[in-house]
Each structure stands twice: as structure tokens, then as C-alpha cells.
């Protein structure tokens, strides 16, 4: 039973007040993209046993989507942040690096 702090309204929201939305920071591929790009965008999700960036919506609260950095093996939450970002903010990255030495994600390490 997870708890996340919604960065938009400041509430410590119960999992039952939220709806999960899968991997965060996907890049949309529309017309003009290749079949592989489209497949990757629609289906090939990251599925790490460890640090994961994901989307949640505070659906029973302020209605806003936000992002969370969470460990799928321990359910530790490293932080939540704005959904209007292309990659996790530095402070979140720093927390993860401190807690999970050697962690890598895309071009970040």
C-alpha cells in the first residue's frame, strides 16, 4: 500500500487515491516515425528490478499527473516531481545516486 506526496497539492496521498500510469519520460513517436520507433514508444517499457521512473495521477485528489522515482524491488520512493519534465530533476537523481551506488538510466549514471 504505497504513499506518494503529490507535488501539485502537497498531499501525502494513499495509493487508493491515485492511479498508476506506467513508465515516465516516454517520447511520443507519431507520423513519420519508423515501425521500430512506434513499437518502442507503445510497448517496450522499461521493467527494471530497481529504480523506476513512473507516472501517477492524483485522480481522487487534485487530478494532476506527477512523476515518481521508485524502487520496484523494495518499493522505496526516492521522490516525486513534476510531470512537465523530460527527465528526472537533479535533486532526485542525486538522491538515487546516493542510495543506489552504480545506478544507471539512459544516458545518466
Amino acid at each position, binding site marked *: *500500500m504505497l504513499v506518494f506526496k503529490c507535488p501539485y497539492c502537497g498531499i501525502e496521498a494513499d495509493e487508493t487515491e491515485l492511479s498508476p500510469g506506467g513508465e515516465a519520460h516516454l517520447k511520443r513517436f507519431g507520423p513519420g516515425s519508423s515501425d521500430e520507433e512506434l513499437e518502442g514508444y507503445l510497448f517496450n517499457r522499461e521493467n527494471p528490478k530497481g529504480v523506476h521512473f513512473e507516472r501517477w495521477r492524483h485522480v481522487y485528489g487534485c487530478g494532476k499527473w506527477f512523476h515518481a522515482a521508485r524502487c520496484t524491488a523494495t518499493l522505496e520512493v526516492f521522490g516525486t516531481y513534476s510531470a512537465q519534465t523530460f527527465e528526472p530533476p537533479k535533486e532526485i537523481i542525486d538522491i538515487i545516486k546516493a542510495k543506489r551506488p552504480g545506478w544507471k538510466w539512459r544516458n545518466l549514471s
Partner: protein
Amino acid sequence: MSKRLAEGGLLIDRNKTIKFEFNGKKLSGFEGDTLASALLSNDQVLVGRSFKYHRPRGIVSSGSEEPNALINLGEKEKFEPNQRATTTELFDGLKAASQNHWPSLNFDFGVINNYLARFLPAGFYYKMFIHPRPFWKYIYEPFIRQSAGLGRAPSQKDNSQYEHFYAFYDLVIVGGGIAGLNAALTAAESGLKILIMEQTPEWGGRCLVDFSKIGDETSSEYVSRLLSELRKFQNVTMRSRMMGAGVYDHGYILGYERLNDHLAADEGPRHRLWRIRAKQIITATGSIERPVSFPSNDIPGVMLASAVRDYAVKFGVATGDKIAVYTNNDDAYRTAITLNEVGVEVPVIVDARMSGGGALAERAKALGIRVENGKAISKVFGKKRVEAIRICEHKDSGKGNEKIECDCIAMSGGWSPVVHLYSHCGGKLKWDEKLALFKPDSSAKPTSHDGLPFVTAVGSANGSLLMHEVLKDAWEGCLSVIKAAGGKVKTKNFKVIEQQYENSLQAIWIAPHDADIKKRAKIWLDFQNDVKINDVELAAREGFESVEHAKRYTTLGMATDQGKLSNINGLAILSSSLGKDIPKVGTTTFRPPYTPISLGSIGGSARDELFQPVRKTPMHDWHENNGAYMEPVGQWRRPFCYPQFGETYAKAVEREINQTRSSLGLLDASTLGKLLVTGPDAGKFLDMLYTNMMSTLKIGKCRYGLMCSENGFLIDDGVVARIDEQTWLCHTTTGGADSIHAHMEEWLQTEWWDWKVYVANVTEQYAQIGVVGPNARKLLEKIGGLDVSREALGFMEWKDGKLGKYDARIFRISFSGELSYEIAVPAKQGMAFWDELIEAGKEFQVMPYGTEALHVMRAEKGFIMIGDETDGTVIPQDLNLNWAISKKKDDYLGKRAQERSFMVNPNRWKLVGLETLDGSVLPDGAYATADGVNPNGQKSTQGRVTSSYFSPTLKRGIAMGLVMNGPERDGEIIEFPKIDGTAMQAKITSPVFYDPDGEKQNV
């Protein structure tokens, strides 16, 4: 015999007699008794039968670890199977019956299994009943099934109430023994908000029974003082009869509060399930005594030493006239001493240790009790009751012939900390070799959302078995979590309490030590499931080496006590069979709940009218009062049709359609989604959402639009109206109101967050009514107000204004093919407006129509329905809706996906109309077959029916379907097999069966 002592019993009130029944026998006990203590006070030692061999079973314990004393409790709507007698408080009129026997507890045919026991070892059913094949289904399984199960199945609906409660604490302490109470007191001073819960009705745990004095106080003075000190703290909540059922991630813990189980009649909710968030949790859950594994240790009268002591001290019950004690540790000497003090004979204390016990043993000896060190019980005499024992040297195979008479055996094989709650969320355990127990590994506690530990075990739950250790551990454990729970540590010195020296335990996993195979086949590990030492050894021999394999193969620990008594003993046998150390083999996983909790409490108040919300339109009650047959549509209930004069639903639908097509019908369309989209970028946004171009829609006009998922599939459709320069009103399907709203918000917030668009779901602001049929205009003109003439309000136009006295927005749209207006009024005006339409419509014989008539009329007209023509695999192109897909747009959601190879495959199934040759109705969902079979031998298909109805208008069956290359095959006849083996033939046609030129709606 087992009986009530002349005096004593801390918990009972001898002035209050309670009457109850067991197996129809009228018995009595005292207030404060448990059912178990009351049964024992009536010499009812035999209380049930075991699962597999139907062996006689007696009460073993005095608490929630009880494997044997499971009873059918209560009657009718209050009947409950598998209730533990040891945790059932006695109340007036309680009715209990023993389980798993036929015809009676005393004489049970099922005991034949016992005589066949040798042929029914662990896992026997995997090796037998294989041939002949049909025998399993028809003979073996039905037999096994009938003999399985324990309690009876309830036969009536449970009428009790249940509820949930959300609570938030800095610190939750589970267990109200001296460890928990001391931890609570230590933490209370730090100002933390604290909950302490205790599963039994009383506080103090074992200390009242185990110690006469704690420090300078008697144990009951000590507990009373702790309680009164705790009650002074506003920040401490204390709840008894509440069990910590499970610990979940992020500090979530379930508290199972039994409010009424001790009462004769319900007063308010029966159970309350607390759903608690705690910053820190302390488990002061104590420990459970282990049985000793000796031959015939399952005979009624063999009990845990601590339980024998409990019954004497708490309830004034002697569990026998002569009670032998068998132990491997000092604690059981307390039982002997206590029994001696209350005047029960203890013929012998059999101590497995050569070196014997410490100070307590000396005291026992001083009282004149015979103590035999280095001995074992090699045999128990008696079948349904212990009659005598034979003792022998422990380091032996069981020779020796001294027979000692006794009618009860108080055994103690050491103690196992209750680590369940600590382990539920991933806490790791370590093996303590000296004490022979698994205890929490304080370096690997369960971690919470912040990655930091949040569950700490204290007291004997943490492996600190001696009283002074318990107190110290509770103190230290509590100090270690106060800061994490958000409190300030106020250090006071810990007051050391001295305790008598105890000699250390000696682990004995099998007694006598060299028991031969015959004896090992009689040494029980799991009393309920009948798992013996030789069963675990067999599992090991056959390669079931992992503890999970052995558990599942033998069913050890899978009974309703979930192995509270048996797990460690079984694990030790498995380890020695494998020649491995116990910690190498490890434990099985601890899963919630700690003891079983009622399904009712899990459901909470969500039953009957609160089972799920029913969403209601403003006219909902009218529909119900006017005989509508309602169908669930999501959480709404919509009229399917309005049967009259006992007519069938089909007839009602026919009548509604005929009347609508010929004169006038009314539809409650309020459930259709209405989403308001506004802003400078709203047009651009809708162009991305819809396959059509919405930005070019003129103010005052309506346009039918399609929405696809990014995966290309059609997900919703509806009419969009342009309200003003920056505002559009999008109608969705009923199901789409919430999902499409969410879909819009998702794209706006997470992809196009710089676009200036706001969306609001205004579905429930309006009552929306379809006024449909050739007389629709006349009706509106009769009500008066807005000009709804052909010229003033053309097809696919909308207008705001007054209609009669109502604030109306009228859309001239049609989903039936008739002249049709959909009129939205503020929801609170809806009922009055509906009434007025019905009243004013009388001259046109107006009829309300339901969803089925709606569906048939749209099918007659060839309109698609989301959920019928679409099923999540259909793209707009399949439905020949290319006209609604803008060619001018570079992009819309789903556009790229629709370019994939399978989506542009020319052989996709496409929408057509289907007319049966004989006018009958094609079955729902029927498939059109093609020649041959596919590589997997399945009949080849070339299409399927998506909607099929009897059309009252055309007086024949009509259908829509998806057929391979369908639109190019107009007039072709294809075949639809039915399930009964016959087939129907249908001609491919246009899907528009009625008024193809739209003459009816464009008037």
C-alpha cells in the same frame, strides 16, 4: 478428569454463570471463560477430529495458535465454521458443535483413514488414483472431496455489519503484554501519537500467569499500574480484542477488531478492520510454546505446558487429575509448581536435559515433585484421552518400561517468537542456536517508503525470553524507534529487574532421540493436518529439499493455524534429514493474516445498498416508478425498456420503437458524457484527439467525431458542438464520460502541457432528453419558446434559450434516423422537464424508450455503436468511416499506428449489413465460416456479426457485421453456423437498412 478447581481463576467471575451448548449438550461456565476453558471445566477434552486421519483431537493451547479446538459456532445467519474455542469468549446461549466427523464426535467413520494411515503417507495421492483415468473424476475425487474440509459451509446470508476505519499513528505497538505496555509507556512520554492493540480481552499477556512478582509488586499490581499510567496519556490509544492482522508496505498495518464476538447479540458492527498508517511499528507479539515431538503426542490430554498453567491460573481449571510435565527447558517447571500450588498432582516432570533445570527445578523438587532428568516419554497410553505414559532414557530408542499414570501431559519444547508481523513485509530472521529459535535480524528489518526500517520486534517476539530481558529489550527497542517516529527521546534510566536464574534449553527435535521408524510414524508435527515426522523424512528422501517443497508435499503448516506450533519442529526434522543446519534450510514465508480474519470485515460496509455506488440520473426514480427494466451500464442503471401490462421485454422494445418511429418517443440520455473544452489551443487540441477536423467547425454547428487510442483503435465517438470561438462541447459515450475526460487531461498534462486548454466534465450538470419521432417538433412547439423549425434549427445545429420555462440547449441530432432533438437542461430542472414532456406528449401518445430500442433503431439506420461494432481491435477504417478521418491533418492520436502493416492489410474485416435469407435473426456474435481449416485445425472464418436484432420497423432480422473485404462483396451470400450444428445464410448488404437517404431526419 478435567474440571473446575474449587477456587482461583483470575479472569472468571464465579458469581456469573453462563449457559452454553456443545454438540447439543447443555453446559455451563462462568463469565470470563473462553469456550475452551468452559469445555475443559466440564471434562470435555475431546473436541474435534483431525483433517486426514480423523483422529480424536483435544485442546492443546490456550490461544490463537490452537490447531485442534475448531468448532462450528452459532446458527443460521450467525453460523461460523472453524472458530477457535481457545479464543472464543463464552456468552450466554452460545452454541457450538465439533467438526469433521460422521456420525458423531465420539464415533467417527472417517477414522478408518487412521487405520489405513500407513498406506496414506505424505503425498500419497500424487502416487495413486492414476488409473483408470475416468476414476479420478467420477470416483476418487468425489470421495476425497467429501472427506475434506473441516467446518460446515454456512447456509444463510450473514446479516451482521462490518466497517473499516482509517487511522494514522506515529507508533503502533502490537501486543499488550509487558513488553508492549512498557514500550508504550516509554514512547508515551516522547509525545508520539500511539496505538497499542491486544488481541485478547485482557492486558498483561503471560506475566500474570508466569510471575507472582515483578520487582516489588505483584504481577497484577504491576500491570494495573502500567495501564493506569498509560491511560493518563492523551496521546495513547489502547484497544483490546484487536489483532495486528498484517503489515504491508509503507507503514500500512491492519488491525482486526472484534467488537461483538463476545456478546450474545450484535450491537453495532461485528468487526472493524482498522487500516492504519504508522511511521513506526513495534511488534511485541510474544512467543508461542512449541510441542515436543514424542510418540503419540497427539492424543487428547497432551497440551502445551503454558496452556495447562493458563487454564489453572486464569480460569481455575485443572486440565487433569494427574498431569505429567515433559520439558526441555525451565519454563515448564512453572506449570508443575502452579499445579502443585492449586492442588493438582504432578506425578513426574520428565526433563530431557541430563543436567536438568535451574532454580525453578530446585523449587519443584523442594515441593516434592518427582523430577526425571535426561528422560523422554516413549509411549502414551489411551486413545481418546491420555491414560498413562511410559518413560525412558532420552538418548535411547525407547526402551524402558516404567509406566506412570496421568490423564494430561503438559509439554514444552521451547518457545518460538511470533515473528509473523515482523516478516510480512520482508523482515529477515536469524537463527539463535542457544535458544533454538528464529528471531528478527535487527540488521535486516522491513523497510518503508523512505528505505528505512519501520518494524521493530521487542520482548520475547525478539527472542528475549526471560522477564528481565523482555523489559530491557522493550525499553531499548522503543528508544531506537522514537526518533524515526518523529518523537524526542526523554531518557530516564532503565530500572533493572532481576529474575531467577534459568538453565538453558536443550533443543530436542525428536524424542526419544533414537526413536525407530515405527515410533517416528507416530510422532505428530502438525496435529490438524496429520503430518508426522516420517512424512517430513519421506519428503526429504524424495528430493523435496526446499522448505517450501516439503511444506507443500506434506501439507505441514498449511492448516488453519498456519503452522504456529508445527513449523519449527518440522523444519528441524527436514534439516536433520538433509544433513543441513536449520538456518541453511530457512523458514517458509510468513503471509498475512496472523490468524484468519472474517471475509466480512475485509468487505467492510460495502454490502447491499453500499456494495457499489449506483449512479442515478435526475429521472432515475421516475424510470423505476414507471416499471422500467433497468440494466447496469457501468455504475449507472439505465432503462432497458419499459414493459407494460406484463408484456415481454422484446414486445416492449417493439412497441417503443414502433411508437417512436410513428409518432414520438423520449429517451433519458443524461448519462452520455459531456466535456467542455476551452482555450486558445482548444481547436488544435481537438484536432489531435479526433480523427476529424474539429477546429473548422462553425459556431452553432455539430459534427460527429471519432477518437482513437494511440494504438490506432477506435475508443469513443460522439457529437461535438462548437459553443464559441474558444469553446467546444464534446459528447462521449456513457462509459467515455470519465475515461475520455481522463484521456484529455493526460495528454494536456503530460504531453502538450504548454497548450492553453482547459477541460471540464459537465456530464452531471445537465439532464439530457432525446425527443424523437415525427411529432418531436410539434411537441416542442407546444411547450413553446425557442424556434425549433427546420429553418431556425437545421440538422446538426444547436441553440441555447428558453423552452417553456426551462433553460435549454437543444441539439438537432439524430441517432435513430427520425426527426430528433436532444435537449439539455440543468439537472435540477430535469425531472420537471421530463414530466412536462410526458404530459404535453400525451396527445402524441408519447412513450419513453430504453436502451434496447435505442440500439435497434441505430442499427436499422446503420450507425455503429462503441462496444458492439468496436471491441478494442477495430479501427475506424474497418467501419468505412474514412469520411470522418481528416486527410488534411498531419497528425492525430492513432494516425501513425493505423499505418502499420496489419492495419493497412487489404484483407481486414470491414463493416457490412447482413440480411438473413429467411428473415430470421442471426445469433449474437455468430461467425461466418470460410472454406477449410487453419493450421491449428480450427474452422476458417471470414467475418462475424457485431450487432443483430429483430427490426420491428422492417419486420425481419437485421444485422451488422465485419466481413473480409465486405463492402466489395455486396449481395454475396455467406454462411453462419449455429452452435447446434445448423447454419444460417445471410446476404451482404449496405448496413443502412432504414431510410438510406435521410428523409426522415431532415424534415
